[in-house]
């Protein structure tokens, strides 16, 4: 797998450290809403398909990247610096649940 770092260009996946689900938003630091904290710390989106993820180019420029990657094909559709807009916007699939 290659990840195209916006600074360094395409690099081997071995240079990157996975930092997981990029859809999580951290509650306000002073929040005492334990459910919100629990969701942030422990719950993850885990789609079979396009997934917003955070990767760090740990063996390169060390920037954190917001990556949209398909978990079935491993194809990457977008990469940008995570810090530019915070966490990436949701591009996740709709639930298939019946009402």
């Amino acid at each position, binding site marked *: 797998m290659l990840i195209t770092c916006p600074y360094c260009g395409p690099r081997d996946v071995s240079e990157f450290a996975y930092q997981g689900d990029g859809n999580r938003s951290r509650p306000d630091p002073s929040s005492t809403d334990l459910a919100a904290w629990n969701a942030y710390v422990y719950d993850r989106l885990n789609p079979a398909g396009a997934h917003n993820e955070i990767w760090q180019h740990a063996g390169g420029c060390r920037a954190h990247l917001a990556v949209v990657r398909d*978990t079935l094909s491993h194809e990457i559709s977008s990469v940008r610096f995570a810090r530019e807009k915070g966490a990436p916007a949701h591009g996740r*699939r709709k639930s298939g649940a019946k009402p």
Partner: protein
Amino acid sequence: MAEYSAFSLLRNALSGNRDWKPAWRKPSPKASYDVVVIGGGGHGLSTAYYLAKEHGITNVAVLEKGYLGSGNVGRNTTAVRSNYLLPQNTRFYEHSMKMWENLSHELNYNVMFSQRGVLNLAHTPGQLDDLARKGNAMRHLGVDADLMTPAQIGRRVPGLDMSQSARFPIYGGLIQESAGTARHDAVAWGYARGADRRGVDIIENCEVTGFLRDGDRVTGVTTSRGEIRAKKIAVAVAGSTGRVMQLAGIERMPIESHVLQAFVSESLKPFLDTVVTFGMGHFYVGQSDKGGLIYGGDLDGYNSYAQRGSLPIVEEVMSEMLALFPSLATVRVLRSWGGVCDMSMDGSPIIATGPLPGMYLNCGWCYGGFKATPASGFCFAHTIARDAPHELNAPFTLDRFSRGTVIDDKGQGPTPRMH
């Protein structure tokens, strides 16, 4: 259906092997069942088996998306052990171990459980203390564990680099002699045959596409082979938990799906009778009865449902193998494959009622699910039948994260790829 035995083997051979019967039927799904188990892997099949055997619930269907056993039960590296640090895990896996010891008889199917020992190596005095802590924890729960000296290890495991000049010299190890390996496919087939003989419908090529709901309650599933209603729906799809729960409208779970690669070498004259694990990285190796070295290492480290690994991990695993066994450089890798692991937030499984009414959940096995197969099915069946956990799976709840009662054997915290 005929019992399997040396006698039946001989009798059938004499009649040209034409009189064997299918190991399990291929029924069409009925409109409704008491229990529908989603997932025809080891855990789903054993759950169905124990529902029938222990609880007399035989109006059960096991739904499998592909061919039976196409998930992790046929993709793992076959180790069976109960060498855990934390008592919740040790008790559960040790119960499983005891079940393994009689599984071939229980199922009348030789699952080739071989208690050849699993050896964890230590490469620093500190690691040896850590192993002693774990071994003593096991001993205090009645589980066998022993420390081995380098000399003992050298005698037992030929080819291991025992030199002090090794980059990570071997200071000793912890062995669980009762641990070992089993033939993974046979476990799935044996449970399938056993469940089938008790009346369970095993339905292959039947993909669940959605859940039927009555309010919050799940009342059935839609599948590629039609709608099936059920009083209780048990989900045992480790590796695909994210996908299936999404069908039920549950987007977020304390689980990530990760790919773990495994490797088998060409067949060699057996020389490695013990399963050996490396202490300075994630590496483990055993040798099958056919002679192939079966080994693996770390997760690829990112979410994936692809059952396909990446090259850097291949290289990593091979270099770790040679760090232990420098002579195996000339041995050749024959096959590699990837399995999708349900990585939970503390490295321990979830076997519980819920999260929706009518639903029961068995997931989060990380890469340790194979050895749990008997106990997992046993406990899950109990949980489904009684609507309450067995004491062995009582700690493995879904709410342990919010309550802070996590069971974190590796102490890595909520970083699933590290467990």
